[in-house]
């Protein structure tokens, strides 16, 4: 009888773990660490980014916090480095910070951005406000 109870409890515990096995938080424990260096290199190289491309938007969303953490760890405040410039890039071109290679804000509502690095701004309805540091 005791053996039967032990078996019953063991089975119940095993089934409970099984039911939770596909909770995303369970996966997170074994997940690899996010590495945004590829994205940062791409941004730094000035590769043109298509703001209507969901892959690009997903990468920006994923890496924005990582990049912000990296900047803070370096003791930099990006708006200072960029001269605190925030502009409207609604014409699709933004050259103001091309020399510093670092832009942090602006309205990129037409989906084009030729800048070296971008951290925030109004890009389109799907990302609006999601990663803006400077506002629109």
């Amino acid at each position, binding site marked *: 009888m005791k053996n039967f109870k032990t078996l019953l409890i063991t089975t119940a515990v095993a089934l409970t773990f099984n039911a939770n*096995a*596909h909770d*995303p938080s369970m*996966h*997170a424990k074994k*997940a*690899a*660490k*996010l*590495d*945004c260096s*590829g*994205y940062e290199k*791409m941004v730094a190289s000035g590769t043109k980014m298509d703001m209507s491309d*969901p*892959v690009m*938007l*997903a*990468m920006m*969303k*994923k*890496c924005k916090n990582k990049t912000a953490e990296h900047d803070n760890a370096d003791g930099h405040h990006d708006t200072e480095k960029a001269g605190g410039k925030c502009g409207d890039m609604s014409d699709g071109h933004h050259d103001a910070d091309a020399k510093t290679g670092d832009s942090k804000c602006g309205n990129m509502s037409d989906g084009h951005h030729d800048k070296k690095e971008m951290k925030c701004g109004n890009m389109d309805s*799907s*990302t609006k406000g999601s990663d803006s540091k400077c506002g629109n």
Partner: protein
Amino acid sequence: MKTIKILMLLGILGIIVAAGVIYSGVYPIGADVPHNKFTYWILAQARERSISRASADISVPDLSSADMLLSGGADYNDMCSSCHLKPGQNESDMTIGLYPKSPNLSLAEHEEEHGDDDETTEAQKMFWTIKHGIKASGMPAWGKTHDDDRIWAMVAFIKKLPELTEDQYQILTTRN
């Protein structure tokens, strides 16, 4: 009348032979011995026709959001990539051992296998297959543990997968 009798006799004979083969155990059931072409063709036809019929009425949501890619990417990496691979990977222990061989979803050639399907049909079939699985193929029914939203997110990610670089894949699939 005589012809019908002969056909019936042949039919019964066929059933007896098939039963004999099944019960004798001579058919190689190991995954390391492929089906003969005839058996493979029959099973492949049954699979494709069944999925087409069952998925025909599924309505496909908008699959173009970045959030869907992030959700689907993380799930794909955890649940699918060991069999269906990822960019830059050609094989894994699972793909080497699995039979029937699981399609490499990171390659565009995979899409050509369903060349006649339009975007919607392809998404419908993909959703159904992920949700319900395929018998005796190693493909599980993920619908038992994942809701439709998560499965559609996986469909959205898989449709983009052949275009992804290794860096993009890594960023989109990391779960944090």
